[in-house]
């Protein structure tokens, strides 16, 4: 018992001090008003203010679109990756790994070089006299920016799934006279559907929690859940930590439900197949 305690003590203390206590306090103070009394005023404020509703709307729409696009591209990318030779695979996995860790300030900066107001893309479109439809400093621009780390992340999640599929299945269905489309839609798709759901959920959640890239690109000019939380803590609008807590709690509750649902879908499907 004593050794067990020793083993778990540092880990337990860490989890307690920087996870359980702060998250619990966050939950509690989201239900307090400025004077410390119990109230739903923070949540009331979030749902009845057009500004805060806009933050929720922006976060959800950016994340939804970017993760759907990235999901499709990363399935295709992961499939293509399985067709390549082992050494090429290794190199590409390193490349994807690096481009996903490039997210944040470095990515924001390089996107400004490429698509900013004095950037390469603007130069190309003005020499070609094409109308430049992309404004990187906008909701659409953000949706686009997120794909630079969502796609590599998606590929790295999907690759092991597709790589483990049994190649003989295709030969069997081919011998039995099934077309390639039939094989993909009736055999492969049902098998990887739980993984698709799971990976979509992870990509969505990852996009929802993205702060560094948005903040570095647009400061607090893009209103999303993370940037609102950031400015409420930093006091760039008016510091209101309880309101930030309410936002953060809302975020955690929604994400926990979505991730949990995603896991459940995966488990049920997984069981049915086995």
């Amino acid at each position, binding site marked *: 018992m004593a050794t067990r305690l020793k083993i778990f003590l540092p880990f337990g203390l860490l989890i307690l001090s920087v996870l359980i206590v702060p998250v619990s306090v966050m939950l509690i*103070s989201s239900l307090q008003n400025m004077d410390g009394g119990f109230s739903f005023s923070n949540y009331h404020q979030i749902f009845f203010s057009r500004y805060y509703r806009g933050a929720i709307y922006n976060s959800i729409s950016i994340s939804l679109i970017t993760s759907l696009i990235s999901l499709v591209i990363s399935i*295709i*990318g992961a499939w293509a990756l399985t067709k390549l030779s082992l050494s090429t695979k290794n190199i590409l996995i390193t490349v994807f790994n690096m481009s996903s860790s*490039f997210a944040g300030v470095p990515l924001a900066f390089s996107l400004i070089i490429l698509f900013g107001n004095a950037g390469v893309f603007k130069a190309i479109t003005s020499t070609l006299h094409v109308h430049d439809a992309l404004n990187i400093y906008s909701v659409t621009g953000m949706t686009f920016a997120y794909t630079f780390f969502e796609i*590599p992340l998606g590929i790295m999640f999907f690759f092991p799934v597709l790589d483990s599929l049994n190649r003989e299945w295709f030969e069997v269905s081919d011998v039995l006279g099934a077309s390639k489309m039939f094989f993909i839609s009736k055999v492969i798709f049902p098998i990887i559907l739980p993984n698709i759901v799971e990976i979509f959920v992870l990509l969505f959640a990852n996009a929802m929690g993205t702060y560094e890239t948005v903040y570095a690109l647009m400061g607090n000019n893009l209103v999303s859940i993370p940037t609102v939380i950031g400015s409420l803590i930093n006091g760039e609008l008016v510091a209101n*930590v309880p309101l*930030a807590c309410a936002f953060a709690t809302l975020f955690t509750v929604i994400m926990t439900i979505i991730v949990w649902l995603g896991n459940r879908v995966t488990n049920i499907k997984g069981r049915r197949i086995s």
Partner: protein
Amino acid sequence: MEKHADKVIAKIVITLISVYLVAPIIATIMYSFAKSWVNTILPDGWTLEWYLQLVTNSDFLSALVRSIILGIVTTIIAMCCFLPVVFYANVYDESIKARLRFITVLPFTIPGIVLVTGLVRVYANLPIPQMLVLLLAISLLSLPVTYQALDNAFIAHDFRAMFEQALILGDSPLKAFVKVVIPNIRVGMFIAMLLTFTSAFGEYVLTNIILGGNYETLKIYMYRLMQSNGQASSVLTTVYFFFLAIISIIMIAIMKRQGNKKVEEVGDTKKL
């Protein structure tokens, strides 16, 4: 015939995706060597001036040192907290692993910006060094990566037998762990340490909000430069990128060597 067509399509797809993902990185590297690059498709000329400027800048060196310190201390904390638990879970009680599964979704349900809200609420006004709060919090955020890498280190050997034999031979548990277990997981541990170090080295959200401008790490310095001097910032970003690249290459090399060894080992046992 169809297989060949597949391969060609696969190559085209991968090339397109790679070009798309690598374009920002290439642009940054080019920008760092450019004399000036405003409103033109290619830079006006090439120079090393910005590199010299950055390397001789004392702000850069102190930011680098701060990031390295952050990385090293976080790695030590993370190892002290997680190594014993992962060891125990793998060797004595596999059922703990199921309970530790929540760790893998932690960064998705509680990302940095959410965690920092709670941390600020609890610790901002307490008389404890905020640096300590930051170090512990970054260790926690690195947990999923560290945990996974450490967990992989324990595949392959019968650590229970090893550990218990050392105990019977009279070693204290700590001594047995250091003498018998650690040498056998040193490669996996090294990878876990590299990953933890990298995540702490590049941390931005927590450092910026908890310590503000009081502790300017590489990323915070990068952000400040980005506002004032684009060229210098691109040099810093390039340096940061090469740092990431070197770490990935080291890791791939180690894992490849390990992989080969394992294949050989399996081959040997099969022969027996």
